């Protein structure tokens, strides 16, 4: 739909984006503050950024966070898609609702409980706390959201599409690969990004299931709260943010370039 947006609509979008980005700009603004806090801007300085580059420990933590986020989002997306397919194929409404409810349990539960119960499970199973326990936990709590993002698209899909494909001789696998997956791709992407968000933001669960030096950015930041967050964290967030922004924009324009023109790229 390529109607042009009315000026009023454009204004609304602008306002929304402004509000969305306001705290971020605030954080970035103060990352240059020589004053050391987030209230009085005293002078411009790059000290906080300089400090960052000397802090190897923080760097490792950031990398840990990224790896966990990417891997857990990836794996949970795959499992989540499988889950959505399972749920869709269920015949009885009872079973469907039960599994769906079970699926959502982790979204309902407060992080503290998830963290505590996973901790108990891991220690019972004798799994050492560290990278793997964190990864497993992140995968675990991201799966439900992937399911919730993918399922509506699956349910919308008309079964006649599948019937038509099978009529034309497609095997089950082909149907999956060439009919279902392309149709639900927006849902898959949505799920993936939501999973990323859940992972990057998580503190409580990670805190409980980590051990022995493996830490993520969230845990580090929350631990700093008692002493007051020093502005090198602002600097770090600013860098990560800009980096992500650039990545997103570049990725988008690359994929746009690859889309065959006129083939239904836009609707």
């Amino acid at each position, binding site marked *: 739909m390529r109607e042009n947006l009315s000026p009023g609509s454009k204004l609304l979008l602008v306002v929304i984006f402004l509000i969305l980005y306001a705290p971020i700009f605030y954080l970035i603004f103060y990352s240059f503050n020589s004053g050391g806090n987030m209230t009085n801007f005293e002078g411009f300085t790059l000290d906080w950024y300089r400090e960052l580059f000397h802090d190897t420990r923080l760097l490792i933590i950031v990398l840990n966070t990224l790896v966990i986020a*990417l891997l857990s989002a990836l794996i949970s997306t795959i499992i989540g898609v499988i889950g959505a397919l399972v749920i869709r194929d269920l015949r009885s409404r009872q079973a469907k609702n039960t599994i769906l409810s079970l699926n959502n349990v982790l979204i309902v539960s407060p992080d503290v409980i998830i963290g505590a119960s996973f901790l108990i499970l891991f220690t019972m199973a004798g799994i050492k706390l560290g990278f793997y326990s964190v990864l497993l936990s992140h995968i675990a709590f991201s799966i439900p959201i992937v399911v919730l993002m993918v399922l509506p698209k699956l349910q919308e899909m008309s079964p006649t599409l599948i019937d038509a494909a099978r009529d034309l001789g497609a095997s089950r696998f082909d149907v999956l690969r060439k009919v279902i997956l392309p149709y639900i791709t927006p849902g898959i992407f949505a799920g993936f990004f939501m999973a990323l968000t859940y992972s990057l933001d998580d503190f409580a669960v990670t805190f409980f299931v980590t051990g022995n030096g493996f830490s993520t950015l969230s845990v580090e930041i929350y631990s700093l709260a008692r*002493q007051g967050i020093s502005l090198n964290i602002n600097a770090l967030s600013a860098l990560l943010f800009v980096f992500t922004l650039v990545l997103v924009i570049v990725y988008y324009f690359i994929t746009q370039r690859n889309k065959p023109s006129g083939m239904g790229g836009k609707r």
Partner: protein
Amino acid sequence: MKKLVQLFMAIVIVSAALLAIISSLNSSEGYSGGNTLTIYNWGDYIDEELLSQFEEQTGIKVIYATFDSNEAMLTKIKQGGTTYDVAVPSEYTIDQMRKEHLLIPLDHSKLPNMKYIDERFMDLPFDPENKYSIPYFWGTVGIVYNTSMLDGKRITSWADLWDEDLSNQILLIDGAREVMGMGLNSLSYSLNDTNEAHLQEAKEKLDTLTPNIKAIVGDESKMLLANEEAAVGLAWSGDASEIMYENENLDYVVPKEGSNLWFDNMVIPKTAKNVEAAHQFINFMLDPKVAAQNTEYVSYSTPNKEALKYLPEEIVKDERFYPSPALTEKLEVYENLGKQNLARYNELFLEFKMHRK
């Protein structure tokens, strides 16, 4: 489908690359080596430069992890699966850990620098004879107030908080023992009181404070007070000294009805792997010059008497942060009240919080 596969591959490659970087960084830092020491401490509660100093002196690699609350730390250590060699809990948690056999006794012969600690802070009820812990930092709980926002009025007691002029001006700490303790102290009861009638009285007294309370917050109260969001706040002495440095209008007082004396001590949890290094580290931190440097960075009060000689006079003579023995006599250390009583405190605190609506 193609797009998905592309994305999938991209992520796998990026992750692999990141993992490679991490492991190379880790080994270059010596983290995956042999002789390591894992420290579990409050956030930003040590001058990290000292960790490097320790590493150089002893050749032991330090792994540093942080927590933000005693209970969270306790849960982690209790559950097992961790190998922290040194931890820094607060006194009431140490009491609990001691009773639950979660600590390894200290070998005092390996801690010669112990003698520098002020005797006032040794052999306290929560750890008799310091079998398991050595003081790291200490302080009091008191009131921070903004003299300019209060037009020069001075606060000296808990009772002053109930003054009507302070409507919507007070920030409380989100801690049951601190707030209930305040209530109890204001009624001249001990802050370790477990008498149900007294507790109810304290809670009801607190309810009457509601109009004066602006918010009940956590660590952010420091920032809020420094930014003059509120005129008065319940605070720990260490936090107070920090923000007073930032905002000259602030003053700190330990109320005359009595208050809490707190300690954060170094302990060796039973899950420790490198007990030898743990002792070396604790002894290192007890060195007066090291303690002095740490104190200047963290800006809390050091229990190390010898270290005071290396600190500026104005800090050491400041009675607000280094109260005389006469004053500290009147203050109480939190006792471990046992689960039932603690639960009762928290229930009443929860009810109090809900009363505010």
